[in-house]
């Protein structure tokens, strides 16, 4: 396992140029920058329509220094498979293939291709950067939008359905590696990529991405809000390695601490949750407490 990286041991080489079209304070920009440091120069990227498409630049300027194939919305994982196949025929299997798709491109339109690739055991890392909505097209709801969130097409009642648990879906494919990460914990993301890059088959990493315009907060609080999601026990950082579940990093520490920040603090920090009633929040708090009671029990 990778020894824990700290800021001073993080490689300094950058794989993204400044001056991208990403929003001010974009959480993806932080995760993507550190993610590419972990992947390194011998990487080929696959990106569907998403915020990342725009961040990576409009023709003829690319802000990414790595080779990247832009593909249709539903086909991210299939395209990763295709690149892998060519690398095999060329004897260049030392090159890492990494797909970076948004939550819409993963949990909704891209799920079929992802499931197919995972079932075939195609050897690439699939990153789902989850800003919990179709943010690039103006904040429409996606499968991973949490319950109660106001979006452009759940404008008054908020999303009525639960957040789709994509890591659990991927874990059901018997993958060698499934992990959850957050843009607020970039060093944890770096280490998890290093942990899994040499494991066989499809690896799945789900990254929680705070989004200022989509979630409704002053951009400066992005990291704070990302941390709150974890410290409230609402979003957990874990690894599932060959089927074995393990809380990690800040989430692991919470098991020791036995104290969660009340989730209402997370919700009140974002205007997208403004219509959540106290009763609904209490309900969600209940569910979180139950989940963590389970974690505490396992720990005993």
């Amino acid at each position: 396992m990778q020894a824990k990286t700290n800021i001073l041991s993080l490689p300094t080489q950058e794989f993204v140029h400044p001056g991208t079209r990403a929003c001010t304070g974009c959480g993806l920009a932080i995760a993507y920058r550190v993610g590419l440091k972990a992947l390194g120069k011998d990487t080929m990227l696959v990106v569907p329509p998403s915020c990342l498409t725009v961040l990576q630049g409009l023709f003829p300027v690319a802000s990414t220094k790595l080779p990247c194939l832009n593909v249709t919305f539903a086909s991210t994982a299939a395209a990763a498979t295709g690149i892998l196949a060519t690398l095999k025929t060329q004897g260049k299997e030392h090159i890492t293939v990494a797909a970076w798709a948004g939550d819409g491109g993963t949990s909704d339109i891209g799920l079929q291709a992802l499931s197919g690739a995972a079932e075939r055991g195609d050897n690439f890392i699939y990153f789902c950067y989850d800003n919990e909505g179709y943010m690039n097209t103006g904040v429409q709801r996606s499968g991973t939008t949490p319950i109660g969130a106001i979006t452009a097409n759940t404008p008054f009642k908020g999303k009525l359905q639960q957040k789709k648990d994509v890591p659990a879906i991927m874990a059901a494919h018997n993958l060698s590696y499934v992990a959850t990460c957050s843009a607020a914990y970039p060093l944890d993301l770096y280490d998890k990529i290093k942990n899994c890059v040499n494991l066989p088959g499809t690896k799945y990493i789900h990254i929680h991405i705070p989004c200022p315009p989509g979630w409704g907060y002053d951009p400066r609080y992005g990291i704070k809000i990302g941390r709150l999601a974890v410290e409230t026990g609402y979003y957990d950082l874990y690894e599932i390695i060959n089927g074995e579940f393990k809380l990690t990093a800040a989430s692991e520490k919470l098991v020791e601490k036995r104290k969660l920040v009340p989730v209402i603090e997370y919700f009140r920090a974002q205007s997208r949750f403004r219509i959540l009633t106290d009763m609904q929040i209490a309900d969600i708090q209940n569910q979180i407490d139950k989940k963590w009671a389970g974690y505490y029990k396992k720990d005993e």
Partner: protein
Amino acid sequence: MHIIENGNVAAALGVKLCRANVIAAYPITPQTPLTERLSEYVELGQMKAEYIPVESEHSALAVCIAASSAGARTFTATSANGLLYMHEQVQWASGARLPIVMCVVNRAVGAPWNVWNDQQDSISQRDTGWIQIYCSDHQQIIDSVIKAFWLAEKVSIPIMVCYDGYILSHTYMPFDLPEQEKVDAFLPPFKPDYALSPDEPANLNTVTLPDVRTDVKGELAHGYMEIRYLLQEELRTTLTAAAEAEKRFAGIFGRSGDPYIEPYRCDDADYVAVGLGSITYQLRVCVDLLRKEGIKVGIMGVRFYRPFPDAAIANALKGKKGVIVFEKALSYGYEGALASDLKSALYEHLAGAGTLPFVQNFILGIGGREIRTDDLTQALRAATKSRVSKEPAWIGLKL
């Protein structure tokens, strides 16, 4: 060496001889034996290729697009609704200028479900910027697959090699199996102008603006419109490259024909029957019969449908009294697509230079409705007497 095999196997043998090294396919009747045979070759080690059993046709072409972008020679095959499901990727492949070869085993499209032969599937893709070749027998299938790889890689445009489901895919015919050495001489290894790799990183096919924009070197780069224009321009010049392919092929394999059309008893004909694929061979029986009755009729099989060889077709029909177009597909809301294209070619090249031949459009064989040679002969005979209808006339309808 002559062998007897079915059309799907002829296609598979062509792909094997061309040393395609990434194959992705999803099963759909009547294409399945083609890709099954390819998986046999790969598992037996007779083909050095990655065979990927994808979970949908959309993904099949997605795999090929990505693999081709990274520099592999790729192949897929499909029919009907599989092709329709791929449509987004079909448009993508041509816009990305990738030399993918795909066999379309022609089958009727849903709704309602129908697994038998007509050509609505590939005809509905004619605007996508792919090259489309139609085959009338197994020799043409295997030869067209071989020529297709060469042509696609020469012009960087993907190619659909189409042949009739069941009628050709599942029937057995003798044909010459080209030798591997000769195919290697005809088709050298794939050397793309650019292959995506960390050695020369680039960002491919990202959002492209309406107008031109300066690149990182300070030079003005083409915009979306220029990229699309070049696809159109290079599709038109493909007609020349197709003739070159035919010549090269003839030089190495000793057989050739017209690259665009396949004429039969046309030279002295007053009336010419036109079609795509196996129907043009079935028509030969009718034509021979009508000739005995003294009717001077011939056949023009159209081999290249896109890019449309308008000049060649118009030239071949110059001075004819009538053209009878038999089609297993149509552009719903108007008429047969081939008839429309043909009329426009006649108008473009022959208007004002004497009388234009009349064009009679027949629609038949839809959803695999049996095409009885007697009905064909009757229709052809009637049309040579006088134009039967302005609207397309349907043969074999049982209202």
